[in-house]
């Protein structure tokens, strides 16, 4: 018995409602779930990156100032006549400087995957300044003339207190801006 066109149309509509539409809806739902999962994973990666950047900035700032105070103490007591305190400051410097340099260099190395190339270069340049100052301190400590030695420490104290401290602040701000962790848009 032949089917009428009307019957066939209804049959097709029934088949679509029963099978095709739920299938399409399920497919859409799956796609939405995949997209949401990808978004969550990206958000998690972003959160981890921001956390790593924040920790890096904190560590770097702490290590730079640790070095600065260790150095400052030697220059301060080296520029005065308090021999015992100079001896203590010098001993502390000699005992800690390798670890401090290691920690700073480690942070700079880590920065390679966290900051721009330009900022990484700025950090490496500052590390070279630190090494130069360490070399200068070694040279001053070997000076035989006590008056010249005291004045050389006073000059170094002046340098560390003013220009070096300012450089650290600027460097930390540059890194923070680069990481998007500063309220400033650009470094002044």
């Amino acid at each position, binding site marked *: 018995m032949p089917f009428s066109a009307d019957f066939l149309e209804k049959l097709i509509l029934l088949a679509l409602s029963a099978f095709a539409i739920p299938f399409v809806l399920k497919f859409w739902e799956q796609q939405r779930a995949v997209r949401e999962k990808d978004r969550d994973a990206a958000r998690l990666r972003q959160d981890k990156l921001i956390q790593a950047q924040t920790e890096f900035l904190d560590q770097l700032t702490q290590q730079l100032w640790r070095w600065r105070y260790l150095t*400052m103490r030697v220059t*301060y007591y080296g*520029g*005065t006549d308090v021999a015992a305190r100079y001896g203590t400051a010098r001993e502390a410097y000699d005992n800690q400087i390798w670890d401090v340099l290691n920690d700073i260099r480690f942070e700079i190395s880590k920065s390679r995957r966290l900051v721009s190339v330009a900022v990484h270069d700025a950090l490496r340049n500052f590390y070279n300044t630190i090494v130069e100052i360490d070399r200068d301190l070694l040279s001053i400590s070997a000076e035989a*003339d*006590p*008056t*010249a030695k*005291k*004045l050389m420490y*006073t*000059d170094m*104290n*002046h*340098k560390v*207190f003013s220009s070096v401290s300012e450089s650290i602040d600027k460097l930390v701000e540059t890194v923070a801006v680069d990481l998007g962790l500063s309220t400033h848009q650009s470094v002044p």
Partner: protein
Amino acid sequence: MAVTLRLPADIARAAGVEELLLEAHSADELARRAAEAHPEIRRYLFDSSGRPRPSMAFYTENRILDPYEQLADGSVVEITFAISGG
């Protein structure tokens, strides 16, 4: 201008005098004249490049002098070296 330069104790010991009476128009010139008169204190006043030590300051009548400021005849200028803590 005849100006009196008072030296810090360490440098005075090396120069063998506490004060120098020198002809100079500015504190910078005064330090250079002092180094000419007493070459043994040159390295205390100037660094290895010949520049005045960055921590060196000049005082007169309880105020810091600009190194190139015109000095008055009969001025008394004192050299000090600034040191900072913290």
